């Protein structure tokens, strides 16, 4: 039964080689296998969510070696929820890439896509910091391939920036892991969490360095200002379905921050006190502001959406940096919302690009299927900027509410509300130029029909928006779930004891059990 936990990693790891070995030249088979695999991933993820929804912590010991010596995968409410979110996003993105024929414009799209899913799922499920690094690298190397899919000079150049930035990030990650290992002698998260407690008060230099370096690494992944410079051109130049899938990649950084800084370096730990409120909260607010200003200043639609992603990551990090149970619960709700909304927006950008050619915010003839695309854009923009009635509004309200209970947080309120207003203006301006003023121009009819997006593309975008609406309609139940998740995060004893005390090869418990059996 416990073997289920490794399936989200194993499944794409088998599907990708199968595609490359058996179906390299058959796009049809590749598509069927890839969609089938993603559907399987959703099914497994739903199973895992149901299994862990009552608070159970699932553990998978590779080769039955006990932690901290063996490699462990751990599934709790947070990680299984993120895996499910990733699988749902992946299905819509995959359908879109098939509908818009993006997958035919270069080679090995589906292979890289599956490896990317493997890396992301692994990063969510692993219970070991070094394996977190390894899965980061898997998802990154797949993303390098996806990023430059279909080629083109601008894309290759953005690809070089993206790869180099992430190489530096990986190096920094290794420095952080080295420092942590030198101080604690372990890299298993549960084990490190216990060992950090016993670091004596006058020898905290190394552990503090490690904590800050880890935060920097995850902040690069989450694109928090001032480490966000890689994001706008990478996301804008990447193929649209890839950019939509990357919407979950920034959340991997947010996930890692939540995981590590609730379990290993919790708020009440004296060694790292001040990290959250003194450093993380101001930069989170700064990302929110920089993102909003970028939305207003963007000259092209794809950059506008990329800056909206930075802004929404800032919003997530505000929730995380407040670091109360309530604020983390709100941040988790907002993570789900922001992933779906960003994914939908990137796909809509591509719908616009298909019949316009360029994405500059200038008045052009209306795009093919303008009415429908304009409607979709409006729904996604309402969600992204946080206007009622969609989930962005509810999420922001929850985070503001969590900030209100915390005491004097005028800055949080002022910046969140101000930045929302700025993004609304930015999105309204883009929408009115692209769709409204365009009505005044005449379109050449012949081009119009040829460039109309396929029905499947609309289905994919519609799927994401439907999930957003459901996320809004069942906001109460989702919030109950994220509250339970946050409660589990703030009481990590259960997680730690499950990881460290489950018997396996070479552990005392295992030997004792064997003797008893004999």
């Amino acid at each position, binding site marked *: 039964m416990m073997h289920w936990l490794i399936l989200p990693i194993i499944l794409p790891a088998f599907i990708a080689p199968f595609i490359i070995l058996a179906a390299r030249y058959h796009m049809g088979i590749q598509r069927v296998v890839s969609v089938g695999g993603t559907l399987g991933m959703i099914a497994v993820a739903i199973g895992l969510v149901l299994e862990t929804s009552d608070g159970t912590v699932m553990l998978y010991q590779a080769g039955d070696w006990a932690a901290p010596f063996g490699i462990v995968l751990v599934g709790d409410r947070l990680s299984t929820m993120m895996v499910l979110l990733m699988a749902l996003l992946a299905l819509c993105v995959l359908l879109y890439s098939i509908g818009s024929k993006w997958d035919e414009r270069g080679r090995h799209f589906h292979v890289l896509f599956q490896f990317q899913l493997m890396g992301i799922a692994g990063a969510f499920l692993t219970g070991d910091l*070094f394996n977190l690094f390894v899965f980061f690298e898997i998802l*990154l190397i797949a993303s390098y391939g996806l990023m430059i899919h279909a*080629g083109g000079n601008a894309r*290759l150049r953005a*690809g070089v920036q993206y790869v*180099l930035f992430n*190489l530096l990030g990986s190096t920094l990650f290794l420095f952080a892991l080295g420092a942590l*290992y030198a101080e604690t002698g372990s890299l298993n998260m549960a084990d490190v969490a216990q060992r950090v407690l016993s670091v004596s008060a006058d020898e905290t230099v190394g552990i503090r360095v490690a904590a800050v370096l880890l935060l920097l690494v995850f902040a690069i992944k989450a694109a928090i200002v001032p480490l966000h410079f890689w994001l706008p051109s990478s996301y804008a130049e990447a193929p649209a379905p890839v950019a939509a899938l990357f919407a979950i990649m920034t959340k991997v950084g947010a996930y890692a921050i939540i995981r590590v800084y609730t379990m290993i370096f919790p708020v009440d730990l004296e060694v790292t006190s001040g990290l959250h409120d003194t450093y993380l909260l101001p930069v989170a607010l700064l990302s929110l502001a920089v993102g909003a200003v970028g939305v207003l200043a963007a000259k092209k639609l794809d950059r506008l959406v990329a800056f909206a992603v930075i802004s929404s990551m800032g919003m997530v990090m505000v929730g995380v940096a407040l670091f109360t149970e309530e604020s983390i619960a709100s941040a988790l709700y907002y993570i789900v919302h922001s992933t779906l909304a960003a994914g939908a927006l990137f796909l809509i950008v591509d719908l616009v690009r298909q019949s316009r050619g360029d994405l500059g915010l200038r008045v052009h003839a209306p795009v093919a299927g303008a009415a429908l695309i304009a409607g979709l854009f409006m729904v996604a923009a309402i969600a992204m900027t946080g206007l009622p009635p969609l989930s962005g509004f509810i999420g922001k309200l929850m985070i503001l509410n969590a900030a209100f209970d915390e005491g004097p947080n005028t800055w949080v309120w002022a910046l969140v509300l101000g930045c929302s207003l700025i993004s609304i203006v930015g999105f309204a301006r883009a929408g009115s130029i692209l769709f409204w003023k365009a009505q005044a121009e005449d379109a050449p009819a012949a081009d119009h029909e040829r460039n109309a997006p396929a029905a499947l593309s609309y289905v994919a975008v519609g799927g994401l928006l439907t999930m957003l609406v459901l996320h809004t309609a069942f906001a109460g139940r989702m919030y109950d779930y994220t509250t339970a998740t946050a409660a589990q995060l703030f009481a990590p004893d259960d997680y730690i004891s499950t990881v460290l005390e489950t018997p396996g090869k070479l552990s005392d418990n295992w030997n004792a059990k064997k003797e008893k059996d004999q």
Partner: protein
Amino acid sequence: MEFLVASAIGVMTAGGLYMVMRLRTFPVILGVSLLTYAVNVFLFASGRLTTAAPPILSDATVYTDPLPQALVLTAIVISFGMTAVVVMIALGAFLGTDDDHIDDEHAEKAQAERGEDAT
């Protein structure tokens, strides 16, 4: 020995960072390689420096921590692969645009000089 190892890590990191800030692909890739060497030695040192000691439990009273060696091995493989990938992508970008600047500003200027539309 501690001083030697520490200063080697420091010099390589400093050199690597300097090269990375040159913002042209060739020095940047060299810089990233230097940084990965530095981090490999750093990881190695994180298991404490011991000489002439076995990395496995045996009758010897002093032994080397084997885990950092495994970590370094993984890190070497990954950074080697990643560097190869970035060399290929950078070469593709250079051959396509005849320009090896990494930052947007220079690249856009170069693009404008060639008279291409900067989109």
